[in-house]
């Protein structure tokens, strides 16, 4: 599953990730629709909020045992191990708001579009892991590394371990000899 690291301390609130997200999904739309008509930017699937210095980035963490899926009364949520994401089948969604109520990251919204023609009207939507891109665009566009995404659930831990060990390694030569023969 995707491992999504959000570090709001690093975030300077530029909201580029949010833009990149909309963009990512727009390109997908036009891929099918052809390039002639330039579609309006779709809603982003993550949200950056800046209020009196406090920054929030609301994005799905693609939990291994997602509470949203448990809460869904319509069985619209599916954990896709292959792509490593939690995804919504909007055809099944009935817009009951249960998932919104359960997600501790505030990462799910319900579509309330201005134009009532919108097919996803009052259906839940959330991060889809950019599975059509080689890597999630929000992370690739983030200039400060406030959003980092690894495509396996231990990615983060493994990377942390190695980074730290690499630092440690520098200090190791000191007194190493002592342990060589000691048991």
């Amino acid at each position, binding site marked *: 599953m995707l491992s999504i690291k959000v570090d709001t301390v690093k975030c300077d609130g530029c909201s580029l990730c949010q833009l990149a997200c909309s963009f990512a999904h727009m390109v997908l739309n036009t891929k099918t629709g052809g390039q002639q008509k330039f579609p309006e930017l779709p809603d982003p699937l993550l949200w950056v909020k800046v209020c009196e210095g406090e920054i929030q980035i609301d994005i799905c963490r693609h939990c291994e045992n997602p509470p949203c899926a448990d809460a869904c009364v319509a069985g619209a949520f599916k954990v896709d191990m292959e792509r490593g994401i939690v995804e919504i089948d909007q055809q099944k969604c009935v817009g009951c708001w249960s998932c919104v109520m359960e997600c501790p990251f505030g990462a799910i919204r319900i579509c309330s579009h201005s134009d009532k023609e919108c097919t996803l009207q009052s259906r839940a939507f959330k991060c889809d892991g950019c599975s059509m891109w080689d890597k999630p665009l929000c992370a690739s566009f983030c200039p400060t590394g406030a959003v980092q995404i690894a495509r396996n659930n231990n990615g983060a831990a*493994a990377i942390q371990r*190695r980074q730290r060990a690499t630092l440690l390694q520098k200090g190791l030569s000191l007194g*190493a*000899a002592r342990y*060589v*023969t000691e*048991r």
Partner: protein
Amino acid sequence: MPQITGDILHVDLSNNTSWRQPVTKNDLLQLLGGRGIGVRILWDLVKPGVDPLGPENILIFGAGLLSGTAAPSSGRTTVTCLSPATGLYLKTNVGGHWGAELKYAGFGHLVIHDRAEKPVYLWIDDNKVEIRDASRMWGLDVRETDISVKKELGDEDVQIAAIGPAGEKLVRFAAVMFSVYHAAGRGGAGAVMGSKNLKAIAVRGSGGVIIAKPTQFHETVLHAREKLLSESGVEGLSRYGTAGSLNAVNEMRVLPSYNFQRSCVDDAHPLSGQCLVEAGYLKRRVACFGCVIGCHRYSTVEKGVFAGSYTGGPEYESLVALGSGCGVFETEPVIKANELCNIYGMDTISTGSVIQWAMECYEKGALSRQDLDGLGLRWGNGQAVVEMVKKIALREGFGNTLAEGVKRAAEHIGGDTHKWAVEAKGLEHSCVDTRSAKAYALAFAVNPRGADHLHTETLAEFGLSPEARALIKKITGDEKYASPYLTEKRAEIVRWHEDCYAVTDCLGFCAFTSTALYGVTPQIMAALFSSATGYDISEENAMNAGRRVVTLEKCFNVRLGASRKDDTLPWRIMNEPSSDRPDSKAVTSEKELNGMLDEYYSLHGWDKNTSWPTKTTLIRLELNNVAKELEDMNKIGEE
């Protein structure tokens, strides 16, 4: 099948296909796994007339049955194929962490078929198998390969088995290097891998090993561990590594020096494990997967000509082959040469041996300085040794001749030089003087892969430790046979050891645990097999299976046309006493050898004249189809 067995993964490089094959219960119980299953696959797939370096040869990687468990020092892997050095059976056993990772990916064995058009490497990610382009890596040394593969896969924790330039250039004693510094060295498996255009095999396994009777198994493991760690030999082995015994070997006058012209030198200390520690070359003790001993080394050179070299090892065999064998008694050039062998991917024993031979030829005038591209390959010239290692790996100049192995090189140069080529079956003799260690001599002679100790390590015959003497008593009925100069009872000793060694390899234990130290007894191994697989077998069954494996290996060679005349020793061992001990004991004469061979064959139930196993023997070992096939070829022994 019990989960611990793991499936056999077949990969055909020619058409990018791969398929799974489960191990049958019968094969598991008869051959135990690892090396046993390996030789079975080889027997089934490689028929006579196959060119070792041709696409029909196959390369089998077999993780020990217990690899991946906490069983002490059980993480070893066996590589099996047709040897480019001997043209006969080859199994070469290696440590490192690769085998366990393969188990975690759900496989016990990996079989490589045919050859790829262009350089490739294999990526096994649990059950996903992918053949990826390796053109950019071709020519890189093992260390660089390891780094670039890990970089490309974006995971530093994958396990990699790779070949270096030597393997690519089909050096006949090229090694497959596991986890960078662990070599499946002898017999040229690396060349076979090179001939298949296969640069590396990267594995990542996220699974685990599930035991049939966990609590029972774990208790036995902890017991075995205790027993092993209480052995008298462990302390020294983990403290000073394999080379810790070098001084003792010298004192026992079995330390091959100056290409086996001498078996003892005044001061071998610079090559000893003790020296590595005291002089501060040793930076770390290193262990293979799950090993509680940790005899592997990590050494660096900080000052002098060879400053900046760092490598796993050097091990005893490397220190002798590249050191005393070449008359080099300084540590640093040996560490350097050892590093080069490691990163170019070459067997240190054979590399050392061919260089020793070249040195002797040069000293005795059979080779001129020009022949050697201007290298002053005199005894003790460490610099020259290091240079020559490079030339061999890259097949530059005379290195190209030596890269063919000492036997072919001697044939090429002609004259008396074949007498100085210390090899049998085409494999360079490993580093113990078999002139004054008779069980070793017998073991070397009958070893299906040629003159070396890693088929049957009969260390016990020296009676160095109480455990060793006890074992000799157990085998022969009397401690007095714990003496390397006796020829009596050698057959018994060798046969017990080769059975035990086979079981050890099949389960993935390190030979040290059962035939150099004796903590992991056949009884314990049988118990572990039973609780791990859920199929109960007795100690006797286990040893029997070991003998079955040994016999099957023999049969494989027989089918290729081998017979008694191949079970021999190097000319020098049999005819030329070492200069420092001119007494009669200092050779293992043809007569002595023949005596021991007769005993050995009859003990096995093999035909004395041809050394071919008899039908009864094969039937007794339930190798009926093998018997059938050999019978059809008229290669079955007379009763």
